[in-house]
């Protein structure tokens, strides 16, 4: 048996799943009033939470949602829409490429290395700002959850 009090996390674990705790810790908890009381407190709390009535909506969620659902398109209708969408996108990309193919070959001809560098730097700066924005957004969410 260990003489020092077991950790709070072991006490919690003991209260929830005693089998997961080391035997030496179990022996201590069973002998030590302080740790046993702490474990009993947790067991009581866990039991109360488990037995507590679960929240439920006081309205008929199913019918509220069902009346808002759009009429479903058939699978074939959906797939044909998707095919036409991709055809249009492809045309939008391929046709200009075909028409301006001669111009494309000389697009970057004569462009100084400075301009290319500036474009790359601008793209990099935009990327950094986007990453910062994502990070700030994440932080805001954590703040909302009181975990700043």
């Amino acid at each position, binding site marked *: 048996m260990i003489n020092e009090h077991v950790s709070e996390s072991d006490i919690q674990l003991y209260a929830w799943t005693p089998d997961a705790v080391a035997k030496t810790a179990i022996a201590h908890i069973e002998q030590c009033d302080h740790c046993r009381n702490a474990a009993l407190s947790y067991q009581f709390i866990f039991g*109360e939470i*488990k037995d507590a009535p*679960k929240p*439920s*909506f006081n309205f008929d*969620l199913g019918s509220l949602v069902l009346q*808002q659902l759009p009429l*479903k398109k058939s*699978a074939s209708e959906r797939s044909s829409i998707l095919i036409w969408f991709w055809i249009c996108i492809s045309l939008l990309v391929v046709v200009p490429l075909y028409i301006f193919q001669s111009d494309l070959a000389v697009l970057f001809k004569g462009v100084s290395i400075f301009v290319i560098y500036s474009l790359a730097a601008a793209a990099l700066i935009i990327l950094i700002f986007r990453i910062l924005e994502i990070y700030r957004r994440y932080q805001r969410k954590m703040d*909302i959850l009181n975990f700043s």
Partner: protein
Amino acid sequence: MNNQPGIKLTDQELVRKSLHGDRHAFASIIKNTEGLVAQIVFKMIPNPEDRKDLAQEVYLRVFRNLEGFRFQSKLSTWVGQISYNCCLNWLEKKKLSFPDPTPGSDEDPLESLSTREQTPSKWNPETLAFKKQSSEIIKREIEKLPPLYQTLISLFHQEEMSYEEIGKITSLPEGTLKSYLFRARKMLKENLLSNYKKEEL
């Protein structure tokens, strides 16, 4: 194609039927998962009217994204994930600060908790009343925790979901999740002890 009463369809069948326009199948999905959605929405959203809008928004989003669901998790876990994200986005949009929890009464209802709990008598009206009282106290204290803690405690201890499932819903790594749960339980116990001045529950 209606679902016959008494026959329980699998999640795969319900999703397939819903995608083919079977509204009863989608109603079954709602029925099977609304308990979990309620847990998340009630813990994260303080206003009842907003909860109503949000719950509907959750299922409309589920419906819109159902085609993309690939059964990489249980259907309920996926719906839970959508609920959690909807709540989080809603909170962010509203930039809500959480209201102060309902102040407790002056009485000390936990005073005789320990002795009464240790000597359980028959299940008489007195013990029932006592049980109800202690449940109310714990419910009140849970409501004072940060919303994420409330959600994690409910999902783990009431819904008995695994770390993996809760991790998928909240997008938290397992280590972080365990750490949050540990802190949530500890905070709950300490709040109970300090607010009700009990040496032991």
